[in-house]
C-alpha cells in the first residue's frame, strides 16, 4: 500500500530518468516480482526448519547406533530397521495401535454423522448445542486421559460401580487387551466426536435443499436421506475426517501413557504390553533406559510409512462411496 501511494505521488516532476530514478524503478520491479514470494516465505522457512530438516535428520539418525548417553554414533545402515522388524514387541504395538484405531475411529465417525444430522434439525438453542459439541475437544488431552483413567479404575472407578449396580461383574479394564483398548478408544472418541460432528454439520449445510425435497417426494425417510443423500454429497469431508482421525489415531500417546499410571506400565502399556501403542514403543526406546535415539528414529520413520499406507488405504476405501451412489 505504501509503495503504491509513493508511486502515484512521485512521477509528476521529472521526465528524464536520472540515476536515483532508475534505482527506484528497479526497486519497484523487484518489489513487484519478489514480494509475493517473501510474503509466503516464512511458512516455507519454518516448515523447512521445523518440518523438513527434522524429518531428514531423523532418517539420518535412524541409520546409526545413536544413544543420548554416549557421544559415539556408529553407522549401522538399516540395522535398526532390521532389529525393529524382528522385534515381536513392535508387531504387538502395531497390532494394538490398529485395534485402538478401529475401535475409536469407526464408532466415532458414525456417531459424529448422526449427531451432525440431528443438529441440522430445527432445535431450540441451536448455538448452545453446537458449541457444546466442541467442549470435549477444548479440554486438554492430559485432563481427559487422567479423568477417564479414574472412571475406568478397577476398585473405585465409576464405570465399574455402574456395572456392579446393574448386576454385571467388575472389570479390570487395564489388565485385559480388549478392555484396555476399549477404555482408550472411549477417551479418543469422547474428545473427537463433537469436533467431527461440527465438520460434518458445516458440510451438510452446503448440500442444496432441493435434493432433500426431491428425496422427500420420493418417499425417503430421514435415515435414508442421511445415508443416500447426505453421505455421498459430503464425501470429500468424510475423506478428510477419516484421514485426519487415522493420522491422529495412529499416533496416540497421552491416553495410553496416562492410562498405564506413573510407573513402568505407563511406558510398556501394561505389564503384558497389552495397550502399548507405536508411539509408546518409540517412547520406551527413545526416552527410557538407554535413550536409544537411533532405534527410536527408525521406529518414527516406520510409523510414518505405516501412517501413509493406512491413510492411502482409507482413501481408496472411502472413494467407493461415490461409485455406490
Amino acid at each position, binding site marked *: *500500500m*505504501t509503495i503504491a*501511494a509513493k508511486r502515484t505521488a512521485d512521477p509528476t516532476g521529472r521526465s528524464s530518468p536520472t540515476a536515483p530514478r532508475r534505482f527506484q524503478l528497479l526497486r519497484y520491479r523487484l518489489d513487484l516480482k519478489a514480494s509475493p514470494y517473501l510474503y509466503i516465505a516464512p511458512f516455507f522457512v519454518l516448515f523447512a526448519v521445523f518440518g523438513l530438516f527434522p524429518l531428514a535428520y531423523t532418517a539420518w539418525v535412524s541409520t546409526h547406533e545413536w544413544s*543420548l*548417553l554416549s557421544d559415539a554414533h556408529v553407522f549401522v545402515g538399516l540395522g535398526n530397521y532390521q532389529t525393529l522388524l524382528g522385534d515381536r514387541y513392535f508387531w504387538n504395538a502395531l497390532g494394538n495401535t490398529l485395534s485402538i484405531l478401529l475401535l475409536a475411529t469407526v464408532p466415532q465417525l458414525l456417531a459424529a454423522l448422526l449427531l451432525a444430522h440431528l443438529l441440522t434439525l430445527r432445535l431450540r438453542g441451536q448455538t448452545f448445542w453446537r458449541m457444546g459439541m466442541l467442549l470435549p475437544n477444548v479440554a486438554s488431552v492430559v485432563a481427559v486421559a487422567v479423568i477417564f*483413567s*479414574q472412571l475406568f*479404575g*478397577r*476398585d*473405585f472407578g465409576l464405570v465399574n460401580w455402574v456395572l456392579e449396580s446393574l448386576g454385571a461383574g467388575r472389570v*479390570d479394564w487395564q*489388565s*485385559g487387551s480388549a478392555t484396555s483398548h476399549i477404555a482408550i478408544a472411549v477417551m479418543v472418541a469422547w474428545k473427537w466426536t463433537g469436533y467431527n460432528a461440527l465438520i460434518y454439520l458445516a458440510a451438510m449445510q452446503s448440500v442444496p435443499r432441493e435434493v432433500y425435497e426431491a428425496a422427500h417426494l420420493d418417499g425417503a425417510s430421514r435415515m435414508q436421506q442421511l445415508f443416500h443423500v447426505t453421505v455421498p454429497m459430503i464425501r470429500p469431508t468424510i475423506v478428510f475426517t477419516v484421514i485426519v482421525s487415522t493420522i491422529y489415531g495412529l499416533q496416540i500417546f497421552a491416553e495410553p501413557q496416562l492410562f498405564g*499410571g*506413573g*510407573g*513402568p*506400565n*505407563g*511406558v*510398556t502399556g501394561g*505389564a*503384558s504390553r*497389552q495397550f502399548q501403542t507405536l508411539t509408546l514403543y518409540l517412547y520406551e526406546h527413545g*526416552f*527410557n*533406559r*538407554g*535413550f536409544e535415539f537411533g532405534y527410536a528414529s527408525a521406529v518414527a520413520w516406520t510409523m510414518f510409512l505405516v501412517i501413509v499406507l493406512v491413510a492411502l488405504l482409507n482413501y481408496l476405501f472411502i472413494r467407493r462411496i461415490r461409485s455406490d451412489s
Partner: protein
Amino acid sequence: MKTRPIRAAMAAAAAAALALTAACSGGGDDDGKITLSVGLFGDFGFGPLYEEYTKLHPEIEFEERIAEFADHHTNLTTHLATGSGAADIEAVEVGYISQYTAQPDRFHNLLDLGAADLEGQWLDWKWQQALSKDGESLIGLGTDVGGMAMCYRRDLFEQAGLPVERDEVSALWAGSWEDYVEVGRLYSAATGGDSFFESSGNMFRAMVEQADEGVYDREDNLVVESNPAIGDAWDLTVEAIEAGMSNRLQAWTPEWNAGFNEGTFATIICPAWMTSYIETNAPDSAGLWDIATVPGGAGNMGGSHLVLPAQGDHPEEAYEFIEWLTAPEQQLKVFESTGNFPSTPGLYEDEALTGLTKPYFNDAPVGQIFTAAAQAVRPQYQGPLQGDVLATIGQGLGRIEDGSQTPDEAWTQVLADLESF
C-alpha cells in the same frame, strides 16, 4: 498521509516490545539476587528451609520444580545429555544414582567444592553411592535413607483376629518372610479372601534389598538368573500371589492411593519416606495405621541424593546451600515435618530424633523404629539400571497377578527382556 500514523504506531510498538524484552532479561542477576532452581520428585519438605536459608542469605532465592518420580529421572537424563534444562540442584533417587556416577563429568565435583572434609557426616554406604567408580569425584550429598519397616492396618488386623499391638505384630513374622506369608494366609482365611498386601512387586523388592547382593554384582553384571537370593524371593512372592494375597495394585496410581484410606490391603512395606506418603494420602485414616518391623532383617529401600548438574551457573552458591540443607540439623527438621529419615548417623544418638513419635501412626516411635532399621542396613551394591531391572521383574510378577502368564512363562519373559539391557 494515511501511512505515517500506522508506521509511527508500528515503530512505537516495536520499541515497546524491545524495551519489554530488555526489562525481562535484565531482571535476573543484576540486582545481586541469585535464584537457585531445585528439581525434585514429590515434596521433600524443603519449603520452610528455603525461607530459613533466604533469611540467612538474603541474596539467594529458590524456585522449586516438582515432577513425577519416573518423569523426573527421564527428564534429568535428557537435560544432562543435551546440556541444558536441568535445575541448579536436582534430586536423584538411589535406584538411579549409579547411572549418574558413571558419567561424573556431567556434574560438579563436590569434593572440589568443599565436601571432602565432610565424609564422616553420612552413613558410609550413603557417601559411597554418590562416588564415581574411580573415587575421584562425588556427585551428590545424601538426603534421606529408606530403612524398612512394615506398616499395617490395626483395624483390619483386629477384624481378622490377629494381634494388633506393634510388638506382637512384629513377633508374628520375626522369623522370616515365610512367616509373613503364613500370616497372610491366616488373614485371607479369616477375612474371606481380602488382600494382605498391595503389590507383589514391592514385596519382591523388599526381599531383594535385604540380600547381600542384589540384581547386579560389583562389576555391573546382571546376576538376576544366577543369584539364589533373587530366585528365592521370586518363588516366595509367586507363592503369595497364588494364595491370593496381593491386591494387584501398581504403586503411584490413583487406585493405589485410594487403597490406603479404603483399606483394600492390610500391610505395606514401609521405608521411612512412605510414612509421610501414607499420612498425606489417607488423612482420614489417622490411628488406623501402625508400624511394625519388617521380616527378613534390615534393608534399604529408596532415599535420595542432591546433585549439581555441571550446566548450572552457580555451583558455589548451590553447593553451600545443599551442604547446609543436608547437615544433621536440617535433616532432623525434615524428619520431624515429613518423616524422611536422616542419612547422618550423628543424629542416631540424638534424643530429638530417637524420641520422635507420630500421632498418625497411633503414636508409633518412628524415631526408634527407623534408627534401628537404618543402623542395621548392610549396604548393597546398586548397579547402573537398578531401578529399571526391578521394574521389569515387577512387571513379570504383574503378569502372574493378572493371570495372563504362568510363573514359568513370566520368568522366561523377564529374563528375555533383561537380555536387551
